[in-house]
Each structure stands twice: as C-alpha cells, then as structure tokens.
C-alpha cells in the first residue's frame, strides 16, 4: 500500500480501521511500511488542503477505534507525533478528531493518562510560532481542551489528582511572554470554576499566588529609591493631584509625578506582567462574588497568603489580591482576613511573622474603607489587650530588641488610630469603648513604646490625641524632628518591620483603579482634621504632617530626568509650607477633597515625617 493509496481515500471507514489496526500490529512485528505512512500523515500540518485535512481526520478516527492495539514502546513515534500536535494549528474537524483520540487513548490504558493530560495542558497556550489568529480560534481550542479534560475525568476518575500536579508543573516561568502567562492563568481560573474546581482548582489558585510573589520579588525598588532620599523628604506630604479618570483638569505637576512612576513601571516587564495578572485575578474574584462562591475561593487565598505572602520579605503588591477580595465581601471575607491576622499576632509561633501580621493588620484596618468602624474598634481592643497583658508583668525598661512584638503592636495601634480616630470619636459608644481600652497604660508603660516606635507615627498620633483631648499622653517627644530613631531600627530588625506598611497605595496603575474606590488615602483623613482647625494657626507640627504612607516620591529628588527633578523640587517647596497655604496654592482643592491624592512612595522606604 503506497502513499498514493492513502491519498486516494479508496477505503471505507471500516476498511481503514482494519488497515490501521493491521499496520499497528505489523509494526510490532517489524513491518513498518503502513505504520510509517501513518506517522507521516500525522506530522503534516502546514497549509493543509481539504483532502489532506480529510485524510488526517479519517486516520485519527481510525486510530481512535484501534487504541487497544497501540503499544507504548513499539509505537513510540506515532504517539510522539500525536502528542506533539497542537490544536491551535488546525481547524475544528481535526480538533474534534484529535480530542476523541485523546479521550480514547487516556481511557484505554493507564500509561497514556499522564501523557494525554500533559498534552492538553500544553494546549492551554498557543505554540510559539502561532500567529495571533483572534478570539474565535482561542475559544474553539480552549472550549475543546476543557471539555476533553472533563470527559477524561468521567472515564478515569483519578484524573484530577494527576492533573493537579501537571497544571502546577507546566506553569510558564515569569520570563515568558506576557500573553502566554496570561492565557495559562485564564485556563487555571477556568479549571477552578469548572467541575473539577474543588480538586484541581485550589492547587491552581495557590500556584497563581506563588507566581505573583515570584513577580513581586523580581521588581526591586532600588532603581527608584535611593538610599539618601530621606534627607530631602522631611515635611513633605505631597498632595498628589492625580485626577480621577473623569476629571480633565490637567496640572503640570501631576503629569511629572505620574510620569515618573509610570516610566519606571512601564519599563519593567515584570511589573507589567504582574499588573495584568493581578487584574485578571481581580476580575475573576468579582465573577466569583457574583456567583456566590467568593468565600470558598477566599479560604484558599487566605491559606496561600499565610503561607507565602505573609512570610515573603515585604511583599509589595501581591497582598492587594486579599484587599480586593475583602472589599467584595466585607462582612465575611473582610472580617475573616482581619481575624486571621490578629490570631497570628496573638498566638503565632514565629516572631517575624507575628510582627509582619500585625503590620498587615494595621495597614489593612487603616486603609480599608469598607470595614465598619465598629469592627475596627473590636480589632483595636484585641490588639490593646494583647499588649496590655504583655506589659502588665514586665519590669523591664526600654529595650527595643527584647520586646519587639510589644513595640510592633503599639505602633500598629497608633497607626490605626491616626487614620480612624475621628471616626471612632464621632460615635459615643465607640468613643467610650476606646477610652476604656487602657491605651494610656500601654503607651505610658516604662517599656516606653513612645520612644521606640517610629517617630513620625508617634508624633502624628500625639498631635491628634492632643487635638481631640483624649488620653493623657505627653504632648511632644523630646527628639522632635528626626525622621526615625535608632530604637525603631532595632525593634524593626534586619527586615525593618518598623517601616512596613503593606497596604500603602498600590503603585501598579491597572490594579490601582480597582483598589481606589475602596481605599482610604491619608489626605482624605487629614483633611477632616483640618476642617476643624480652620481657626487655628499653623503649628510647627503641620510641617511634619506626613504620615508614613505619605506620598513622597522618593525617586523625585533623584529622579530620572533633571527637568522632572526641578519641577518636583519646586512643588516640594510649595508643599513645605503649611497645609492651609498650600491649599491656597492648589486652589483649595484639598479642602474640597475633589481630588484623591495618591501615594507614590513605596512603603519599603523610610517614611517621612
């Protein structure tokens, strides 16, 4: 039987079935003629004409019926040819025939299950040489891949177990092209929401979160943050005049600031990939929330968070997945997250992770607009009572190294209060709850947390406390004006957990647009204080208003362009006067809070006052 015979398609289907069977059996015996022709047909893929397509389809169908004759060793080349086919290269006829063959192979013999599953998972991504042929091809391929996976799992019930491992192993590494990573991630999420979701989905989701951390670690802030920036950062609260999307008012300052950050991030491929990947996950979480299954997904995310994000060194962006998920369901997920964090702080095992957890908690409670203030009060109460119990029996005096957890807790309490004090005082029930918490006792204890915690936070906190006439704490500190003291550096340790504010504004542009509506910016909070202070004159401390999350574009003074630097310096000058004056400069916009300031500074840098 020569090749010409095959091309003429002179066989009926059942005749071809028999020929294929015989070819397979003969190949085992050593007679490979027809077998080799079969392999050659499978290998053809370039620009197939209709007859060739028909031949390919018929051969695939014939093989589907003959899988019981296929031998994993003797028919190596045939199997290799079939398994290296990519659905993306063919039309729907061939796709259908191929997936039928895969189902048949996988269910006929245990040896082929893993091979078929691997081939299907590789088909999540288009082959490298594939030119983007548009959405329709993608839909055709992926629909078939997923339905085939389901069909195989109906026949081979242990498929999800094997698939878990394969999905994790075949995940593209972070240096691959963005579209490949994105399409693989889409497929993982599709598996998660599919029938095998319970089994394969959570592994896939965890693998995605791990990938986010990998990207996060790749993006280093050394390019934008210079070591000695803090010298210039005093007294700067850069009211970022970043306009909301609809506002068309342009300001030269905004462009430069925004441009600076965007220039860095847009040149950084990892940042772009991370941005797109996070947005993909955000959209998926939104659809889960609409489908009512956010809580199950959230539990997986929370476990992954505790395992990798919390323990990673100062994760920059990945934690915003949790923030967004919480914002979609504040009552369940929002509270679950906070409770998990405080449990780790109160009764965790590893001290570094406990400090990290309380930093996350503080930043979360401060920044999440959607958390009811009563819940914030409840969390505060737990933090305070934990610190109180700790220091009750301590005879020691100030010792930053020995009582790290205590100082971390105190700093967290003060940080949350800097943001939420006003809201708490407005409600009488919460005000009295606050006053009963024994915060004074904790902060005035001879362990001297006020002298150890980050100075900028302490000063801001004391200023607020004095303004609102609550607690009985010293008005100012002795070491006024310094950015930070040696002591906070000690308690923060090598990791500098004293300056870790993980939910400081997200610097990835696309992500930020999702986070923004649920986010509390410092200026929003501060302006409420200024409302009350209209009559008051400026105080020395006005200049030191900046909060740790403050918007200090570190890169500015050592910015990438001289012109940028000049503009920034001038705007900095404007800012170094009192807020009231600066609000004049900016047309009183701050007062009217029409602009939402955004913070630019990465939280890993030392905060300014």
């Amino acid at each position, binding site marked *: 039987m020569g090749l010409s015979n095959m091309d003429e398609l002179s066989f009926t289907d059942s005749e071809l079935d028999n020929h294929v069977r015989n070819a397979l059996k003969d190949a085992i015996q050593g007679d490979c003629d027809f077998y080799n022709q079969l392999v050659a047909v499978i290998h053809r893929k370039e620009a197939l004409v209709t007859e060739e397509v028909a031949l390919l389809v018929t051969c695939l169908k014939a093989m*589907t*019926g*003959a*899988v*019981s004759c296929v031998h994993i060793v003797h028919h190596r080349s045939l199997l290799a040819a079939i398994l290296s086919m990519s659905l993306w290269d063919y039309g729907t006829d061939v796709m259908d025939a191929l997936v039928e063959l895969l189902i*048949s192979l996988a*269910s*006929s*013999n*245990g*040896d082929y*299950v*893993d091979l078929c599953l691997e081939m299907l998972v590789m088909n999540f991504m288009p082959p490298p040489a594939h030119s983007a042929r548009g959405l329709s091809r993608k839909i055709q391929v992926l629909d078939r891949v997923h339905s085939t996976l389901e069909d195989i799992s*109906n*026949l*081979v*019930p*242990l498929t999800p*177990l*094997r698939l878990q491992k394969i999905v994790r192993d075949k995940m593209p590494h972070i240096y691959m092209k963005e579209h490949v990573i994105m399409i693989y991630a889409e497929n993982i999420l599709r598996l998660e929401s599919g029938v095998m979701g319970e089994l394969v989905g959570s592994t896939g989701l965890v693998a995605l979160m791990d990938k986010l951390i990998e990207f996060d670690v790749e993006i280093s802030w050394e390019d934008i943050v210079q070591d000695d920036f803090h010298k210039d950062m005093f007294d700067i609260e850069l009211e970022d005049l970043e306009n909301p999307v609809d506002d068309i008012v342009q300001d030269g300052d905004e462009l430069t600031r925004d441009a600076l950050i965007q220039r860095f991030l847009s040149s950084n491929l990892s940042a772009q990939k991370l941005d797109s990947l996070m947005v993909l996950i955000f959209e998926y979480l939104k659809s889960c929330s609409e489908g009512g299954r956010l809580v199950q997904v959230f539990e997986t995310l929370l476990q992954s968070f505790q395992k990798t994000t919390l323990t990673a060194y100062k994760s920059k962006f990945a934690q915003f997945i949790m923030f967004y998920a919480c914002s979609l369901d504040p009552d369940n997920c929002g509270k679950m997250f906070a409770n998990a964090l405080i449990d780790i702080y109160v009764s965790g095992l590893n001290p570094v992770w406990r400090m990290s957890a309380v930093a996350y908690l503080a930043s979360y409670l401060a920044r999440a607009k959607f958390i009811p203030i009563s819940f914030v009060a409840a969390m505060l109460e737990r933090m305070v009572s934990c610190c109180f119990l700790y220091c009750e029996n301590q005879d020691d005096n100030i010792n930053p190294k020995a009582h790290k957890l205590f100082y971390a807790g105190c700093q967290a309490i003060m940080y949350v209060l800097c943001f939420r004090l006003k809201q708490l005082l407005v409600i009488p029930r919460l005000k009295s709850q606050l006053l009963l918490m024994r915060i004074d006792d904790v902060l005035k204890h001879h362990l001297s947390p006020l002298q150890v915690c980050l100075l900028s936070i302490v000063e801001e906190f004391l200023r607020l406390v004095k303004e609102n006439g609550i607690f009985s704490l010293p008005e100012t500190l002795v070491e006024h004006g310094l950015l930070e003291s040696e002591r906070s550096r000690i308690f923060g340790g090598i990791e500098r957990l004293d300056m870790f504010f993980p939910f400081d504004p997200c610097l990835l542009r696309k992500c930020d647009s999702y986070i923004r509506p649920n986010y509390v910016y410092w200026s929003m909070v501060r302006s409420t204080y200024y409302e009350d202070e209209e009559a008051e004159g400026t105080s020395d401390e006005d200049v030191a208003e900046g909060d740790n999350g403050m918007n200090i574009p570190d890169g500015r003074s050592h910015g990438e362009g001289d012109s940028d630097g000049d503009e920034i310096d001038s705007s900095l000058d404007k800012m170094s006067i009192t807020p009231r004056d600066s609000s004049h400069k900016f047309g009183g916009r701050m007062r009217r809070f029409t602009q939402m300031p955004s913070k630019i500074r990465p939280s890993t840098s030392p905060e300014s006052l």
Partner: protein
Amino acid sequence: MAGLEECEANLVVYLHPSKANCPSDAILSELSSLLFTYNETFGGVVLAYDPSIRSNLAKIVPGTFPCFGVQLKAKLLLFNPKPDMVLEGEVVKLTPNSIHAVVLGFSSAVIADDDIRDEFKHKVKGGEEVYVSRTHRKHKIKVGAILRFTVKSFDEEILHISGSLLAPHTGGARWLDKNTDEWSRVDSTATKRDTDKLLINVDTSMKNGEQIEKPKKRRREQS
C-alpha cells in the same frame, strides 16, 4: 464483590515534633495520604482506614530532628483485583470498540473489543449506544447499567483495570442475576475449547491445594 478485603495492620506513624499537641489530627492526615494509592506492603489500594491508638506513650526516635513514633492498630479496607476475579462497575461510555466502566467510583475499567465475546453486538438505538446479546434480546449493556466483568490486568499506578467479557457469567449484572439458569448451564452451541476452559476455571477455583493438572486430563479423556 471480589477484590475487596479487610485487614488489620500494626502501624507506627512517625510524627514531626510540631504535631505533638495534636497527634490524632496528624495521624489521620498521615493515614489519609495512603488513600487511593497502591501500597505494596499491604498488597492493595487503601480505600478506608479505622485507626485505634493503643497507648499514649510514643517513642522518640533520634535523627535530624527527633520524630516520635506512635504505635497504632488500624483496620484497613484494601482493594486488590487479581486476574480472573469478577468485578462490577457502572458503565460510563460505550463505543464500537470498547466499553468503559468505573468501579467503586474511583477505578476506571476498560474492555476492548477483542475481549468482548461475539455474542454482544454494538448497536445505536435512538441515538443511544448499546451492546445487545444476539442470543438473548433482553440482555443489554447500556450507559449507566452495572456491568459484571472479569479482570485481565490491573495497573497499580493509575488504578486502571483492563477487563474482559469473554466468560458467559459476565455482562449486564441485572440480567445475569435474573436469569442465572440461562448462562450457568453449559451451552451446547459453545465450542469444545470454550467448554473446557470454563470447566477448568470452575475446578481450579473450587479446589485448594490440589493439583490442577488432574482435572484437565480427566476432562480431555472423557470428551
């Protein structure tokens, strides 16, 4: 059903020191890692376990980190299909060349067309695929029905069974149960070789320890 056996095992589970405050959870999770995998020591796939911990004392084993070993007795349910055992499973797919079934919800079984006796013919009725017996019209194998088949081989890694419907006591379980007299008597139309094979199988399964050669010889002489 053949292939399922219960056994009692004396086990020692070694736990990491961090699990010292919740050993029972750790033991259960260790045991659950055995599930649905073939275990050579036990000689089967562990399907279920029922541990009973004998004492509160555990021996600390020195090593890189000191594990402690908890002794326990566990009742295990094992699945170990051997060739020629008769199993039952639910049919999930029928094709002109094969029948696919799932046994106990986790093990996939396939019967290739070479192993389906000629009695069964593949038909498509009303869009549905079905295998019908040529001799007994009511004997059908449909998707969703329970299939009784003999085991040819068992792939221990993926827990995949290769089965056969050659023997007369295999086929649709419901029909077989209702019509035992139809298939249990020796079918006169069957070939001599088939008959011999059947009788030999029956003999070997009943006789323990006796030589198997004897019955074979006797039959040949008689026929």
